[in-house]
């Protein structure tokens, strides 16, 4: 007892001695750290804050894409874009695009990750190969699918017709009934490998003993998935859900390169509508107002997501 008491006193003495010395050192280290971090923080502030501030300023003017001196118009651009009836369609399509894309990509990615997590011959090649669609440039993806889906000589129509599934070729990217879902699938095809990689990384953290224990307890496959696998990948799904939605809503390239927002505006999402407003109608002020409004919406979405959506349990909690 006395020995233990002596040790504690000694430890306290050490702590007391280190206290004043430590408090003198830490601020110096902290100041040094801030100094080292300052350049990149200034750089980030300049490259993010300045363009954002300029965009907000432009949204308060009647700026024309092709020049002239912008005049301050207050919130007139916001009133215009929110009341002229042209933004509702693109906004709803953006939501459908993000939600539909998230569902399709998550299902594909979860399925692919579960398959790739099993041991089989060529597993490493498959894990590498699945990234192909993600690493090829968007322009290649767009043209690849435009050719494959072409109604006149595309392989997809050829296969569908050969199998007797369709009579006449389908203009997947030019028919209003098919264009939106087609581009959503093309985008999902491009992005799901990235999600697969993240989920696969989470799956590799699950020790085989957990599965064995679940089997010993008589759990079905569904129960193993919902009680063991899902809790482990839920934190990853949380991050993917947040970032994926933000990225997805801002996708412009694949839509523009495949359909240009057509046919009949069926694939015109918010980024496409903003681009058209800025560079086809030359109303830069209104386009900036649309951009700022969309950014605000995404900020609110991100806040609500972080605030209300459960992040998933930690490994210790799962165990």
């Amino acid at each position, binding site marked *: 007892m006395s020995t233990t008491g002596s040790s504690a006193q000694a430890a306290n003495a050490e702590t007391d001695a280190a206290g004043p010395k430590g408090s003198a050192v830490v601020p110096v280290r902290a100041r040094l750290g801030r100094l080292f971090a300052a350049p990149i923080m200034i750089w980030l502030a300049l490259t993010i804050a300045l363009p954002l501030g300029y965009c907000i300023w432009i949204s308060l003017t009647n700026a024309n894409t*092709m020049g002239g001196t912008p005049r301050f118009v207050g919130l007139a651009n916001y009133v215009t874009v929110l009341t002229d009836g042209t933004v509702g369609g693109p906004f709803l399509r953006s939501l459908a695009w993000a939600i539909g894309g998230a569902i399709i990509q998550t299902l594909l990615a979860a399925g692919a990750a579960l398959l790739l997590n099993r041991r089989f011959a060529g597993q490493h090649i498959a894990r590498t190969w699945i990234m192909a669609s993600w690493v090829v440039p968007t322009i290649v993806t767009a043209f690849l699918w435009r050719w494959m889906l072409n*109604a006149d000589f595309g392989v997809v129509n050829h296969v569908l017709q050969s199998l007797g599934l369709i009579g006449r070729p389908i*203009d997947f990217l*030019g028919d209003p009934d098919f264009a939106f879902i087609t581009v959503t699938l093309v985008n999902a095809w491009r992005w799901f490998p990235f999600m697969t990689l993240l989920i696969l990384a989470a799956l590799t953290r699950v020790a085989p003993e957990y599965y064995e224990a679940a089997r010993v307890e008589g759990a079905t496959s569904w129960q193993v998935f919902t009680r063991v696998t899902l809790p482990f990948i839920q934190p990853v799904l949380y991050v993917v859900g947040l970032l994926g939605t933000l990225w997805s809503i801002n996708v412009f390239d694949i839509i523009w390169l495949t*359909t240009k927002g*057509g046919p009949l505006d069926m694939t015109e999402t918010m980024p496409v509508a903003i681009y058209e407003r800025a560079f086809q*109608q030359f109303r830069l002020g209104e386009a900036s107002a649309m951009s700022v409004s969309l950014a605000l919406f995404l900020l609110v979405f991100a806040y609500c997501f972080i605030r209300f959506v459960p992040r998933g349990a930690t490994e210790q909690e799962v165990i």
Partner: protein
Amino acid sequence: MSMMTMATRLGAALLATTAATGVLAQTEVTVWHQEQVQPRIDQFQKVIDAFNESQDEYEVVQQVQSWGNIYQKLPPAVEAGIQPDIQFTIPDFTVTVRDTGVVQPVTEFVERLDEEHGFIEQAVVPYTDDGEVWAVPVYGMIQVLWYRKDMFEAAGLDPESPPQTWDELLSAAETLTGDRTFGIGVPASKSLATDQVLYSFMAANKGQELFAEDGSVAFDTPDNVETLEFYRQLAELSPSGIGSWTWAEPQDALNAGSVAMAIEKGQYLSTFESASGRPASDLGCAPVPVSDDGERASIYYSNGAMIMTDDPDRRAGAEAFLAFVLEPENYAEFLLAEPGLFLPLTEDGATDAWKQAEALQPYQECVELMIEQSTYGKLPGFNRGTVEDAIGPIMAQNLMSQVVQRVVVGDESPADAVAWGQQQMEEALSE
């Protein structure tokens, strides 16, 4: 060393320095154009090299842009004061770019060139506004009807009597449509390609003016409704993928023999034999067919060059280069950047050196036809020598092709679609 010798050597050194400085002071003239195809870039470079070698005052440098990003790239370049000295353009782009305030009028220069070479009227009028000319016409493009003579023959049609009227065109398209072939291929995507084909038919049916004399939009007319109805009928005789077609697909389909007719510009000539595997004699051409009470016409693009510098030296260099290009001996080389698509728009431009070039030689009839058809050319919003500013956003938004889409892929009635187009154009005008 005597003082005299030293002075002589010093003088020689000064002279040498001055001469060297003179070389270094060569004025650079930057050209931006949107012709991204490598053979066109190479051919432009040949002409540029020839110009640079022909004198030592200026050095021309080309920088390739794209129509996809030029609207985003040019304004910041102007704001930063680093815009090109010469910017290649088409009429509606010129209208838009003039808002930047840096486009220089070239009226006197164009008058001098006109006296020397004789521009066709269709080349200069689209660049004329506010009493000035805003770009130097450089080459023309015209749409005609292209058809496969072998397919006409196989279908029992006379390959030497292509359709001249709308009724004949429709009848021929119906005859030529079979199990695996289509009589015609007209695009129906939201694109400039569709805008252009629709406008050719509009122009051939008294609908060449988008604006009335008082400047109001004049798109919703019975003639244009009739044109849209005709376009719908042609679309029914076209392949099912036309909702995504732009320029390449009709050409590919004509070369592949899956469509027998298409309306397009002269790029079909140079690749027909290699792409189709058929002899040049199988490719036929004719003026765009006209309606019963219409007149011969089709869309014509006068491609020009804007001078965007007010620096006297650079401007002089830009003018010297453009004058060099339009000299008949250099012009042939320039036009061969895209044989058949780039047409001369000066009276002395259709030289034998151009016509007899290897790529064009087998298609003499079509070359002559396109030159002749150029004099019947029209362009939406640019036929009167004054320009409505709204034409820029109207064309940039592809409003005419959106009207086509509403009819062809949206099953809307031509009357409703044209009324919608009128409303959209009026909105563009009100802006």
